[in-house]
């Protein structure tokens, strides 16, 4: 734990004002990541502009661990588009393909989805009385993807202590390095 004692040593010899600057620096680094995310949300109109594919239900198109970039336009949904949606009451976004569309007179659409690698459509996944998806459930359409990069997120979710260790290390590094 030499790193920890060196860290405390460095922090103790800093003047209070310097420490304040380092803390604000750390805050700015963290918030800049947050604000980039918020900016993407504003631009893409999607509450989660980047998602990680969590299951293998869309193989061979997308594997577990791929990253998807989402865009929620105002155009009606069409068969064949890959959409990411959330079911009421569940937190996890699901990435599947649109296989049926009912377009009403006012332009709104009812949508049915199915994973490419699944045998049945998603009615079993929807909320108990729900037979169709609407725009309000859909987070966005997939408009681009990066393979494998999302594995980092999956690993950090499966092993939470890794996340805390990484954040702790970053914090120590920023607090003790001088401008």
């Amino acid at each position, binding site marked *: 734990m030499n790193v920890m004692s060196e860290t405390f040593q460095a922090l103790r010899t800093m003047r209070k004002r310097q420490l304040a600057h380092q803390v604000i620096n750390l805050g700015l680094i963290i918030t800049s990541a947050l*604000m980039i995310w918020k900016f993407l949300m504003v631009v893409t109109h*999607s509450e989660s502009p980047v998602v990680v594919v969590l299951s293998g239900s869309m193989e061979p198109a997308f594997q577990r661990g791929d990253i998807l970039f989402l865009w929620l336009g105002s155009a009606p949904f069409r068969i064949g588009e890959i959409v990411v949606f959330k079911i009421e009451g569940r937190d996890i976004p699901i990435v599947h393909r649109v296989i049926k569309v009912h377009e009403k007179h006012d332009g709104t659409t009812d949508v049915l989805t199915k994973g490419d690698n699944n045998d049945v459509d998603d009615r079993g996944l929807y909320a108990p009385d729900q037979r169709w998806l609407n725009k309000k459930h859909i987070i966005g359409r997939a408009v681009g993807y990066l393979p494998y990069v999302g594995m980092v997120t999956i690993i950090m979710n499966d092993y939470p202590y890794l996340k805390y260790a990484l954040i702790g290390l970053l914090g120590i590094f920023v607090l003790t390095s001088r401008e």
Partner: protein
Amino acid sequence: MGKPTRQPAEGKGKGKGKESENEEMVKSVYPGDTATTKGFLDDAVVQSFEDAGFGEDHFLSNVKLSMGALACIFALIAQFWPNPFKPMPFPESRPLLLVCTVLYALLSFALQMIMTFYEQDAILYTLPPNETSPFWNSLQKKRVKVSTRLPRFSINYTVTLEVKDGSGQVVDTHKAVLKLTDYFEENGTFHEDFFMEDIEALISALAAKKTQ
């Protein structure tokens, strides 16, 4: 190279207590660790000016801290408004997010511009010397901007002193290059007292120039 050879000054305003304190807190760097070395040197420069009766002008530091804190506050608002446990859900919060992101970006950008173009290499902005200072007459009402540079793997530490009068005009500049080998032993031990003596000599030279 070898050990810097010099007689340590006798109680130069530091007193017996400080000397024994210095013995306990000998500062040492890994040779080649330019960042920490510059840190030690900069701290010693600031301390020298303080000992010579120049207080530190915290104005720019306060401005930077407030801008940084304000930017962080906007980020927190964007994330947690109106209630940390029940933030506004996305489609409704878009206008709020837009405002917060733009304000954050402006503050961040302004902060970066200040640091890159206004502050540059400065490590200290002083106030005019107070009455107890030996420079009370020679540098009366003048402030000093101290900038330093230490390139990677170089042994030359450049100190630039800019003297500004009451209206902010630069009336004098003084540059000096100090060799690290005069103050650091091969094993990295820092002889802060030798260094601070030389910095005081620099300030005296600066004051002497003014009265010519």
